[in-house]
């Protein structure tokens, strides 16, 4: 019993990357920055990086929610539809009552998001529907509601008051408000997942659901909670989206859910549950943002952006699988001692 555990004595490159996924990502991002800046001189500038940050802020926020859900072995495919529905609804409110204070609009968006998220949570916990099916359903339903609600109309910049447009674009402390909101969300997520009881229960639930139940964790409540949190973040993201793009359309954020899953998985969140960190997910979102930006600057077609994104997901998942296998072999070999 007093011997050191076997895996520790065999420090391989694999176990290094398994433990320090963030470092591997940072290395990859730096490499990418060097390569892209050699190709396009406009890349390595302050304004361009501010652009990248602005572009990935919404992705990062939702990817954090997505990552949290994947840690519980679930998935939320309805994030983009939730975002679009909230964006459309608050925009219509603003069009009808342009004088509404921005803060009220934000609270309304969060409220709407939490309602949509609880619907997911209820279908999954009470209805016992697997998350992927439940949220695939609400993906379509919420998107359908966008059409239903708007009658196919779009909200154009002219329909929105200028005060609202400043919500995302205005700057404080030299940073766009949207970036600041994303940073605050990330800090809260970090504290929640590392220092709050319920946040730690998310990991316990994901790494061993049966044991979590036996240990007295209220697993149903935790599951419900993560979908509500996802809804809240999507609501917030929805109002920010409407402000940033000064528009709400029926196809707002169409297909965006896949990017959030991609950022989470590239950032080291395990599809098997139980593993994932806030810095990892943020780096995953940053990596996607840099690639998109770099490819756009190099005027490379949209197709390649998608292909590169797909390639990265496969790379991340394959390396995870390899690491898992390695760990298992070192473990079983350890029993011989």
């Amino acid at each position: 019993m007093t011997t050191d555990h076997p895996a520790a004595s065999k420090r391989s490159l694999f176990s290094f990357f398994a433990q320090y996924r963030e470092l591997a990502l940072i290395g990859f991002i730096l490499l990418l920055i060097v390569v892209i800046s050699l190709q396009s001189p406009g890349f390595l500038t302050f304004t361009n990086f501010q652009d990248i940050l602005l572009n990935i802020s919404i992705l990062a926020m939702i990817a954090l929610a997505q990552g949290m859900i994947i840690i519980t072995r679930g998935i939320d495919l309805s994030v983009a539809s939730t975002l679009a529905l909230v964006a459309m609804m608050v925009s219509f409110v603003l069009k009808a009552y342009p004088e509404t204070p921005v803060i009220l609009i934000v609270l309304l968006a969060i409220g709407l998001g939490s309602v949509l998220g609880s619907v997911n949570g209820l279908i999954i916990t009470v209805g016992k529907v697997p998350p992927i099916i439940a949220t695939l359903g609400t993906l379509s339903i919420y998107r359908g509601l966008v059409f239903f609600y708007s009658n196919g109309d779009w909200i154009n910049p002219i329909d929105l008051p200028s005060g609202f447009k400043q919500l995302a674009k205005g700057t404080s402390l030299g940073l766009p408000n949207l970036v600041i909101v994303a940073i605050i969300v990330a800090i809260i997520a970090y504290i929640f997942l590392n220092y709050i009881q319920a946040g730690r229960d998310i990991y316990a639930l994901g790494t061993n659901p049966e044991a979590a139940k036996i240990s007295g964790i209220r697993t149903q409540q935790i599951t419900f909670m993560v979908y509500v949190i996802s809804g809240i973040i999507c609501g917030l993201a929805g109002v920010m989206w409407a402000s940033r793009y000064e528009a709400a359309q029926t196809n707002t954020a169409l297909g965006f859910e896949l990017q959030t899953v991609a950022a989470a998985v590239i950032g080291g969140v395990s599809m098997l549950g139980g593993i994932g960190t806030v810095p990892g997910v943020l780096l995953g979102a940053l990596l996607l943002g840099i690639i998109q930006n770099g490819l756009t600057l190099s005027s490379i077609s949209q197709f390649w952006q998608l292909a590169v994104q797909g390639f990265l997901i496969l790379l991340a998942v394959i390396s995870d699988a390899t690491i898992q296998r390695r760990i298992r072999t070192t473990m079983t070999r350890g029993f011989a001692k």
Partner: protein
Amino acid sequence: MSENTLRLTNISKSFAGVHALHGVQLELHSGEVHALLGENGAGKSTLVKVITGVHQPDTGEIYLNDRRIHLADPRAAAAQGISAIYQELSIFPDLDIAENIFVGRRPTLVSGWVDWRKIYREAEQLLSSLGIRLNLKTKARHLSIAQQQMIEIARALSVNARFLIMDEPTSALTLNEVADLFLIVRRLREAGTAILFISHRLEELFEIADKVTVLRDGAYVDTRAMNGVTQEDLIRMMVGRTIKDLFPKKDVEAGEVVLRVKNLTRKGIFKDVSFELRKGEILGMAGLVGAGRTEVSQAIFGVAPADEGTIEIEGQSVHITNPGQAMQHGLALVPEDRQHHGLVLPMDITENVTLPILSRFSSRGRLIMEGARRAAYEASSRLEVRATTVWQKARELSGGNQQKVVLAKWLSTNPRILILDEPTRGIDIGTKAAVHSLMSDLAAQGIAILMISSELPEVLGMSDRILVMHEGRVTGLFSRSEATQEKIMLAATQAV
């Protein structure tokens, strides 16, 4: 610690009209290790779940120090100081050691804020009180099963468990690890913990338990002092009949060599493994867990082929790189981990049994279910699988019955060479005897059997010859007449 008594009287529990427990009683006292014994399906697990508040009894009472208590859920049981370590470990692989101990009741600063410093401080104290030195930040995933078990014990201690239930704690441990575990169990007993200890290994119970309660078919049989009973008594109480010989290997004249393995090597796993297996022979493979026996069998069966060496089947040199080829050569492998490698748990018995021979029941790409059902029925009734119908899902069967289904599955391929990896691990004595007599029959029919087993009595009783491995090498080969426990253990623990 004060004197505590947990008393259960006249406990009955039914599921869907079937009696799982019927009039069971049990008394646990501080400073006592109480063994709970019974075949699989005798009601041990249900009783444990009643004590831990997972199930509520239909009738009967539970008294703590003569005060009647109700255990509505696991939290209520935990509040009374009742804690359990389950057979399927409830470890959290991706959480570190310290957090594993406190999951579900982490100390907090203000509401909801986890007090990490307190967690690490208390975890440190708990582990050192158990005499364990481990890095608290190590993820549980990287620990051996024995170490994970220690973490669970630490977890039980952290709630000041007055009553600790250990459900088959030794089934996955090596001999050394069992010794370590017993050290801790004794320490807990001295500290005044009442321990309910469940194990199928009778020898262990004589070593560790003070009292034993036997259940049979959900009913209470008797409670005895451990030093007043013999193994034979216990077996009789469990099965309700006397098993004269647990290991009834019939003498069979060994025929020609059917499998010849020469210098088989897989780098870093095993080296220069050579042996012969004859028709009608049972060759036992002994050794400690991790000696490379399973890996050798997997190399022969093509699951993870060897790097070097040759395999001959009936004089023909063969090159097997996947299980499909192995089956064509008349090989069958019953794996150790039946839940993961032996069965498809969500499938029913028919589907499981006919999986390797599906092509027999297909006609122009369509499956003829009637034929498959009949084959499954014949195979499972031959092995006396206890199930409601052949459509019952594998996951609903008890461990022993699952093992029978796996055996039925591989026997349906009519193998000439049968590899059995820990064929009776974790199954009850009645089923064990059935598996042993089946093995004996198969050998008599001329099937060559390679049996990997970590239970010495089984190896000694069933094998015609015994091959011993240690750290990937063959360190001994004994005939049935010359083999003794001591010789095998010597070869298994140190390279000769």
